[in-house]
């Protein structure tokens, strides 16, 4: 069990980093609570694997400290950190049986054979691996192999956290569902700290109660799946979570209105007040799902033109032109298809304001 704390962690792979872009991690200051299911979500190259390797001890950060339950472990190697890691591709000891694979970390730590057997049988049962215990690990399917990798972490009673690095990459789509459910079950049962790195939003949001979104070496937001969707604090979160991503419109603030060229969109008073004080490039953000499309004009609505409609079966995506800027609305299947000129309503609670990519609120 452990609470994992990252204190002002900075990392560069270069010996003498010069510019901002030489850093793989810019400044990570973050705490993961004991027993939490956490995900690190971001596109390839955002630094999430670097961060994971710093947590596990495979990498020592250029600057900053890593604390487990308040104890500084920055300089400790992974074998002294009581963590386990599941990698993108199954890592097994090919020549050993499944049983011996699971027993390996225990035997390395000098446990008696009786205890080893007890633990291995227990964990194998939980992971549905009992029928395979005497089989050689090499010939098994990818999902069974990943379960063995996970099992090598679970057998250790001293394990504080299990780290996952895109663990479902090589799993068949049909089996992914089963493994996601299994992971959730195991988290419930063992109450271990799980840190799960992925570029796949479904995996991150399904698995974790706390998702940290990473972008260009920074954590831009940490929150529940609902927070990330409904209240993105960074332009990138708005874009990356949800399909299609959030709409962004360049705007200026005049009174209580956001002006997009000729069109004025009413904001709630608090947002407008902060917007008036904010500096930098101002953008209005709204999720396509919350943008309302009407045939007739109404209070506070702005006029737009329909550019195209994509029917995706369970919903439609309508591309709209508003004062020379494009935005998308997502309509459910049972809503009719608008044509030509339409009127858009921006519900104030879903209309966000961003300055230089960061949420103002």
């Amino acid at each position, binding site marked *: 069990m452990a609470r994992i704390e990252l204190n002002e962690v900075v990392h560069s792979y270069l010996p003498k980093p010069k510019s901002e872009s030489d850093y793989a991690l810019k400044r990570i200051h973050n705490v993961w609570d004991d027993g939490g299911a956490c995900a690190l979500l971001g596109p390839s190259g955002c630094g999430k694997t670097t961060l994971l390797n710093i947590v596990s001890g495979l990498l020592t950060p250029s600057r900053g400290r890593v604390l487990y339950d308040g104890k500084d472990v920055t300089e400790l190697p992974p074998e002294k950190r009581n963590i386990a890691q599941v990698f993108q591709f199954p890592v097994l000891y090919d020549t050993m049986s499944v049983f011996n694979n699971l027993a390996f970390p225990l035997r390395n730590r000098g446990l008696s054979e009786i205890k080893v057997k007890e633990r291995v049988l227990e964990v194998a049962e939980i992971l549905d691996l009992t029928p395979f215990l005497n089989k050689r690990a090499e010939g098994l399917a990818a999902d069974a192999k990943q379960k063995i990798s996970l099992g090598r972490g679970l057998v250790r009673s001293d394990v504080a956290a299990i780290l996952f690095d895109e663990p479902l990459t090589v799993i068949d789509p049909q089996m992914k569902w089963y493994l996601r459910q299994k992971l959730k079950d195991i988290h419930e049962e063992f109450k271990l700290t799980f840190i799960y790195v992925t570029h796949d939003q479904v995996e991150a949001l*399904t698995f974790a109660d706390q998702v940290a979104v990473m972008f260009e070496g920074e954590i831009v937001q940490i929150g529940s799946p609902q927070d990330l969707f409904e209240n993105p604090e960074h332009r990138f979160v708005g874009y990356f979570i949800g*399909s299609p991503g959030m709409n962004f419109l360049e705007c200026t603030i005049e009174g209580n209105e956001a002006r997009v060229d000729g069109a004025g969109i009413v904001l709630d008073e608090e947002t407008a007040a902060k917007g008036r004080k904010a500096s930098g490039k101002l953008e209005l953000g709204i999720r396509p799902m919350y943008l309302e499309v009407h045939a007739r004009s109404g209070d506070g609505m702005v006029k737009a033109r329909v550019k195209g409609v994509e*029917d995706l079966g369970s919903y439609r995506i309508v591309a709209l032109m508003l004062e020379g800027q494009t935005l998308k609305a997502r309509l*459910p299947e049972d809503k*009719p298809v608008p044509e030509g000129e339409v009127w858009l309503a921006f519900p104030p609670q879903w209309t966000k304001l961003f300055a230089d990519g960061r949420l103002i609120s």
Partner: protein
Amino acid sequence: MSLVLENITKKVGRETHLYNINLEFETGSRNVLLGHTLAGKTSLLRLMAGLDRPTSGRVLVSGEDVTGKSVRKRSVAMVYQQFINYPSLTVYKNIASPLKIARVKKGEIDRRVRRTAEMLHIEEMLDRLPAELSGGQQQRVAIARALIGDAELLLLDEPLVNLDYKLREELRVELHDIFEERKAIVVYTTTEPTEALMLGGNIAVIDEGRVLQTGLTPEVYHNPATTKVAEVCSDPPINFLKGTIKGGAVRMGWNIEMPLEHHMKSLMDGDYMFGVRSNHLSLSRNDKEDVEIPAKVELAEINGSETFIHADYDGLRLVVQENGVRLVRIGAEITIYVSPSSFFVYDEAGALVASPSREAVEGKLT
């Protein structure tokens, strides 16, 4: 130009990969082959390209039999799942390669390379090597190479499957626009119904080496002719409940009852299979007519815009699609609501006998 596949059968060893395929493609058309992995989509594409030869049957191009003609002599371009580029050539030379082989003049090559690169937003990367690009950019190069030659037949074999979902989303929209301007026959394979719908055009639903249904993509989506087609055309999987119609009422599962109304009115008494897509199941009541299904939550998959709640009803797995992020506890008892007007009805042989009327679904814009 037209492409016709006539009674095509393909056997490899003892296994039959394709059974008696008959398909027609017109120039300027967009065509999607939709099917699960290993359904035979790639085999079919290879036959069209001329990379393989059918065991029996004919391939006709503009009425001429080309069954035995080598791929080199046909006007074909292909894009694969893997990002296939010449690793030692720059992006520019990669894109130019089909024209170079065709001995097009230098100035003309330059003009067309730049135009195609611009279309795919890789004009800044022309001097780089493929290994220096991201996955998405590499696949853009491969697509540019396929587009540049103005081939009459453009084949794409799940070109987006190895890309991250955001890239997939972006490239999908771009491809749709690019295909619209092409005069070629475009054939595109995918496992995802959403992708098929997005590209529009015609669709052929393929399963286990057989063509199950053809038609306009939205038409097929809204009227899947068999239970199998409904399954292939639905992601998340369509929910099926066994039931009977007797005395003007429908009985499904072990405790679901609803009146025999709407599009089902004219159905005779008997045993049927009732299918409903996950977006028509809901965790809240939308109409007083709605039928209630008690179930137990197994997992909630969240992709941001939607939450897919997998729930157990009497040993059957039902999937409910809700908009936005919905937090539900695993193991919680829930009630699923569904409108009687949203069921596809199949007879005992698995053939469609009634599908929800589109008028009932499409309301009026207010």
